[in-house]
């Protein structure tokens, strides 16, 4: 059998080359795009985190005036919008970008240029949203932007316009990611990589992309309707003129609940990758894990009014949606028990990645069981819109999504950057975040039960809330310390040479068969997949090398292009035209957008080839 050359040399003769920063701005390489998604997500996390800390300072004492009520509303609105749309989703989509093509033995995604466009729409859309600060008012109607509070009559600043248009822009990008990865996962798997051999992380990506495909249209419709209300005087949500306040909520939560699963399913996938690796055991109940993902996704579209139990929709609606909401506990429970069964009888190595993955289990269970309590509609009337809900969704989104994302960061860091994060700092990072998280968010269950509504800019003494808020604020600063250690770890690691081994953790999926970081073309020869945990299988039962599924030869690669960045840029500039009510700016940049799309579509581009280097025939 022909040995696979370790290193190939790119021949860029047929295509323009970019160097330095331009090579990043023009890249269509899914690995670089993944890296940029994650770095941008961490960048926005600094803003979302700073907003959270100001909120916690404001709530430290009763009747406090650290910030005004108007500013407070903008802070929690942007905190929510940032953490959901600009942190949780991009970081998870970043890992999906960086890892999924490697796990299925593909050389890139199905539509590499569209992938770059998705990235730039998210990055520029996020910056667009934050630029509202320069125009005097950030969005201030909460992350779900309830109408009619978000209508022109009640929110006169430009903030909500930035929300409507900024989320449309980044939402287009997300929708394209959904289509791109659905096609990639369904069509571009290496020979032998049947659906039921895919790693669970890839499974979670597949289901997540399906959710995106069906969940993003309703929110896009909502945003467009409100844009018409605010910019052109339509009345979709203007009650006095025949509009409906509940229409916004229905459309928002038809998106909003699946959205919760868009940011948790990839975390499920991450945990399902990491636990078997560090317990040295095959994942327990693989089929039921994949099935549970699918069932959760299906059910997630029929539970949305549990966010609206206090809307007075009547006992029939509330009972039905309460029961469908409770049903989600069954597949979720299956996942938890399967992870426990994977740990049982294993040999557990407590790396930083594993600590984060393990902490996910109890934290997510707390968030899950409080979720079932919230599903009891008549009882929910007491919890709804109180701090009990705030505690619940932070246990799910922080204890679940963010702990999963941090586990993924420590786990895949060598594969993405060619360096290992410092494990000792990693443990300090973990314990401070774990303790800080619980100290911040557990007390919120209690302040909620004591009747503290969410989103109040201050409170009077005498309700027994002060002590719990003070504990929360202390916890937030412990969390800050933990995240600063992560930052230090990242900086310190980037200063080290890239010397990570290909397979530092004794990994199971295909990405660990490649160098760290993986070469531009991923696989010199497309591998033949002979079973689940494909690389582990070759290490244990083969010679530790993947079998090639094709003869060695020149590899066709997509050309880098600045077009995605240019298109995203003109879309955002057209967005400023809309916000500022300037038909000229809006029209001009929309026109420029279409011109660029036309040029990109019509241009003849055959990509380029990388060929095996003569001296690269190692072994």
């Amino acid at each position: 059998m022909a040995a696979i050359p370790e290193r190939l040399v790119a021949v860029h003769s047929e295509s323009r080359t970019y160097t330095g920063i331009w090579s990043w701005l023009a890249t269509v390489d899914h690995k670089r795009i993944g890296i940029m998604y994650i770095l941008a997500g961490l960048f926005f996390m600094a803003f979302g985190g700073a907003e959270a800390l100001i909120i916690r300072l404001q709530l430290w004492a009763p009747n406090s005036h650290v910030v005004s009520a108007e500013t407070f509303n903008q802070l929690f609105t942007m905190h929510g919008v940032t953490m959901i749309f600009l942190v949780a989703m991009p970081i998870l989509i970043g890992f999906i970008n960086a890892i999924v093509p490697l796990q299925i033995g593909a050389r890139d995604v199905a539509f590499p240029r569209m992938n770059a466009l998705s990235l730039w729409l998210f990055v520029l859309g996020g910056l667009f949203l934050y630029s509202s600060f320069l125009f005097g008012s950030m969005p201030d109607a909460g992350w779900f932007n309830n109408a009619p509070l978000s209508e022109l009559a009640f929110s006169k600043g430009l903030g909500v316009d930035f929300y409507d248009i900024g989320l449309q822009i980044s939402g287009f990008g997300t929708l394209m990611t959904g289509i791109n990865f659905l096609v990639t996962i369904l069509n571009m798997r290496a020979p032998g990589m049947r659906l039921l051999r895919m790693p669970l992380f890839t499974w979670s990506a597949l289901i997540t992309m399906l959710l995106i495909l069906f969940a993003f249209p309703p929110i896009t419709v909502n945003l467009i309707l409100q844009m018409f209300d605010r910019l052109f005087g339509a009345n979709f949500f203007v009650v006095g003129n025949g509009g409906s306040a509940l229409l916004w909520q229905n459309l928002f939560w038809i998106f909003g609940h699946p959205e919760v699963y868009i940011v948790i399913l990839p975390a499920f996938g991450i945990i399902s990758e990491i636990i078997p690796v560090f317990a040295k055991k095959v994942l327990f109940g693989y089929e039921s894990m994949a099935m549970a993902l699918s069932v959760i996704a299906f059910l997630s579209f029929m539970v949305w009014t549990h966010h609206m139990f206090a809307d007075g929709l009547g006992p029939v609606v509330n009972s039905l949606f309460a029961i469908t909401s409770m049903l989600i506990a069954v597949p979720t429970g299956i996942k938890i028990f399967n992870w426990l069964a994977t740990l049982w009888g294993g040999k557990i190595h407590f790396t930083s990645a594993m600590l984060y993955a393990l902490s996910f289990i109890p934290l997510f269970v707390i968030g899950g069981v409080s979720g079932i309590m919230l599903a009891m509609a008549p009882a929910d009337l007491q919890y709804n819109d109180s701090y009990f809900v705030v505690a619940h969704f932070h246990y799910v989104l922080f204890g679940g999504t963010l702990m999963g994302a941090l586990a993924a960061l420590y786990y895949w860091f060598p594969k993405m950057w060619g360096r290992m994060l410092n494990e000792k700092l990693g443990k300090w990072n973990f314990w401070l975040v774990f303790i800080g998280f619980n100290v911040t968010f557990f007390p919120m269950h209690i302040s909620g039960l004591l009747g503290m509504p969410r989103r109040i800019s201050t409170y009077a003494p005498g309700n027994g809330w002060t002590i719990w808020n003070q504990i929360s604020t202390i916890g937030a600063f412990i969390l800050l310390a933990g995240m600063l250690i992560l930052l230090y770890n990242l900086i310190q690691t980037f200063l080290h040479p890239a010397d990570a081994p290909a397979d530092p953790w004794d990994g199971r999926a295909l990405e660990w068969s490649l160098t760290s970081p993986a070469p531009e073309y991923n696989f010199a020869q497309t591998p033949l997949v002979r079973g689940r945990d494909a690389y582990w299988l070759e290490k244990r039962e083969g010679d530790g090398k993947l079998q090639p599924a094709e003869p060695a030869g020149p590899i066709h690669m997509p050309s880098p292009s600045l077009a995605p960045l240019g298109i995203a840029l003109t879309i955002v500039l057209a967005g400023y035209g809309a916000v500022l009510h300037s038909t000229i700016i809006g029209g001009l940049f929309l026109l420029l957008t279409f011109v660029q799309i036309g040029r990109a579509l019509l241009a003849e581009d055959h990509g380029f080839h990388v060929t095996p280097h003569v001296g690269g025939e190692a072994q």
Partner: protein
Amino acid sequence: MRWTQRGFRVTLPLLALSAAALLSGCGLGKQSTLSPAGPVASAQLGMFWESLAIMTGIFIVVAAVFLYSIIRFRARPGDNELPKQVHGNTTLEIVWTIIPIILLVFLAIPTVHYSFAFQAPATAMKVDVVGHQYWWEFDYPGSKVTTANIVHIPVNTKINFVLTSADVIHSFWVPELGGKTDLIPGRVNHLLLEASKTGTFYGQCAQLCGPGHAYMKFEVVVQTPAAYQAWVSAMQHPTVSVTTSEQKAGMALFKQDCSTCHTVGGTSFNGKVGPNLTELMTRPTIAAGTLTNTPANLAKWLHNPPGVKPGALMPNLNLSQTQIQSLVAFLETLK
């Protein structure tokens, strides 16, 4: 590695213990869901305890298996042998699918039962509630009484709060009497509440409604039927006796500057934009629970309303100190 396990073992129980200790030490405050004062809130608290018990049980089982696994099955140095690989176990997987379903049935039954039971019967006494940025209007359709930010109800009586909004969505929540329901413009919602003891209970808007959201509070005064009737007749026959020259000046100023927005029973002032001020001095607080009702606070409010309550729609009227004093003198006669 030792440190790791100890961390897990110590942190979780420590958190639970400290929570319990603090809760018992600090009291429940005055708008807690944990101290119900009526059948609706009691039933909701009952559901809370039932579900909390089941959920705590589940958490303890998971945590026990989890902690046992990570302690018992930790890798020992030098042991490089692969553990036994187990792909699945159908019986186990069926068991942990069925058990949660059974537990959910126990939660679903009260959920459905109370969803229907909490519907207001047609015979219940009606109180119309209109949410405004940022205050509450209460109308008694049977007795033509209107008040603001304070609602009197008789004890042991089913009350059907009929909820609508004049502007954005608000939410009516008196935790000690029961859960909340939203006031949605263009919609009429109903909320059944009943108080089983007399006293004052505290409510607050629970749905983000703008900058003044935190300042949109109200009080529910639960009275014996006789005391309630006495309050109704007092509200139906308010008397305003203006005697001093300062009070008269205040009344004239009120007519000029305030009466287009405010109604005062017993006078000809009948504005409908702002809160009804009939018998204002019988209310313990002003500005939707923001300030206690004292002459000094009335003056503070009149000096600059949006400065006291962010986003308040009553503008700063740039009144002089003398004008404020005469207005306060007039308002003090409303009792």
